[in-house]
């Protein structure tokens, strides 16, 4: 009857979203009067999960699962849910977990709500609040099925430490040959760079930067803050920056703690893409730029003077506060 979560493990540790997921799901489990089980795939040391409320870890170890495979990983989550008798299964909002979740939902004949931003409004009936209309609204969704699958929006709950240790159990999964019909040929991952998906802070540039040759100052500011870099749609359309950095309604959504927009006027589609970010700072020479209407902090002025100066001051601040 446990609540079940699938926790992503990469490069020797659990992703932060996995720990946020555990923190959230523990509260859901408590409100349902039950325990929290996590399932892991080829994870090493899983003891950290106990610190975020996980009571039991089902450890799946299988070399066939070394590379992510949505169908096979969905089998893992489904079989773990069946073993635990879980009525609520919660996943993160990473690209991989969002790939998995609908497959898991069909496998468990479950209703599925994605973009969940808060603890359930009620557990009987089971209702959750989720982002909709590209964060321009919220929707309270009722899940009427016996089993429910949720995907938690990033940075929507935060981390909540608990005192406890998780029991671990090796769990063998039955995999189907048909699960392995999709073959990974190669992967290109930017190493040493913070990805928009994982970033707590995003520094983004727009057409106000005048050209790709000026991106150095955005990268430098991002470097000081440990932030990811991003851009507005016109910038990616002009090929100043790769499409993978385009933030907005048809690009990447950003739910960071801090979003710094430099030289971006704030088209409605861009704002929709960053609405879920907690704190927004805007630097723009045009005081009428629509972005100032949704920003928390704003500076009207020349980005080419402000950004290098801000970077310098932040370096000093970091040096004094570390």
């Amino acid at each position: 009857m446990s609540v079940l979560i699938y926790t992503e493990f990469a490069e020797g540790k659990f992703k932060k979203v996995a720990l946020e997921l555990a923190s959230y799901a523990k509260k859901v489990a408590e409100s349902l009067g039950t325990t929290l089980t996590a399932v892991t795939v080829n994870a090493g040391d899983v003891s950290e999960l106990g610190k975020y409320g996980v009571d039991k870890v089902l450890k799946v170890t299988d070399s066939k699962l070394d590379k992510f495979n949505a169908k096979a990983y969905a089998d893992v989550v489904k079989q773990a849910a069946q073993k635990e008798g879980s009525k609520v299964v919660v996943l993160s909002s990473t690209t991989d977990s969002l790939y998995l979740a609908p497959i898991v939902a069909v496998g468990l004949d479950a209703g599925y709500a994605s973009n969940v931003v808060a603890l359930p409004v009620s557990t009987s009936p089971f209702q959750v609040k989720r982002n909709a209309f590209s964060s321009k609204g919220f929707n309270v969704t009722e899940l009427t099925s016996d089993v429910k699958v949720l995907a938690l929006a990033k940075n929507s709950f935060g981390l909540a430490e608990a005192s406890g240790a998780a029991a671990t159990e090796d769990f063998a999964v039955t995999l189907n040959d048909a699960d392995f019909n999709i073959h990974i040929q190669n992967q290109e991952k930017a190493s040493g760079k913070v990805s928009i998906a994982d970033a707590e802070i995003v520094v983004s540039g727009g057409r106000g930067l005048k050209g790709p040759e000026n991106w150095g100052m955005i990268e430098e500011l991002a470097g000081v803050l440990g932030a990811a870099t991003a851009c507005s749609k016109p910038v990616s359309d002009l090929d100043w920056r790769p499409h993978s950095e385009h933030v907005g309604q048809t690009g990447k959504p950003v739910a960071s703690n801090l979003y710094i927009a430099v030289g971006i006027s704030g088209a409605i589609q861009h704002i929709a893409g960053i609405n879920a970010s907690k704190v927004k700072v805007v630097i723009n020479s045009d005081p009428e730029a629509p972005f100032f209407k949704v920003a928390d902090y704003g500076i009207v002025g020349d980005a080419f003077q402000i950004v290098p100066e801000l970077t310098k001051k932040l370096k000093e601040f970091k040096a004094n506060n570390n």
Partner: protein
Amino acid sequence: MKILVCISHVPDTTAKINFTNGDTEFDTNGVQFVINPNDEFGLTRAIWFKEKQGAHVTVVNVGGAETEATIRKALAIGADEAIRVNAVPTDGFAVAKQLAEVVKAGSYDVVICGKESLDYNGGMVPGMLASMLGYNFVNSCVGVEVEGSNATLIREIDGGKETLTTNLPLVIGGQKGIVEEKDLRIPNMRGIMTARTKALNVMEPVAADAKTKAVKFEKPAPKSAVKLISPDNLDELINLLHNEAKVI
């Protein structure tokens, strides 16, 4: 190759979002509806396959008669024929079930959906549809090539991308990148005239119970006014981000 493109009828990206009837319904008053942008990228790629490899392209939408203008636009862009499943979409599960029936009846080799629609942003239908059909499925797809019964795809992953190969039949959850925005087609007069003569078949739905329902809607709380900081006082910004917002 037979391609089915699933299109969703959604508010335009610039639409103001309001709710009505005690915040239980989306207010469609004055809202322009369009083909869901992620679906339009997929549709354009399908038309490319039609022109380069002789594919036959069908578009499908699950919706009431009010979605036919959107379906006609897809025909004007270049789809060969269209199907409207005459059901009000309730949730992703019910929509995927209707689409699965259409796929089974038409024996499509490739089914292209947008990875999510811009109204509920659920991201549910492509994966559910593939699962119901037992088809291979690639989500967050930013590139696709098909040769015979083999497909090579590029999908976005967190922090990069990966290249995959698989065989047909296949369901794709596509997004910007599967074609670029500059390559999207605007219907021309000839396309619009031809679209009027293309078949738009209406299918009655199969029984499909939704597993979720929208109970009510809320708008985000109004924001307090921006705090403006002088460009000559960047220390104040750092101080506010550290002590007030607590984000650095």
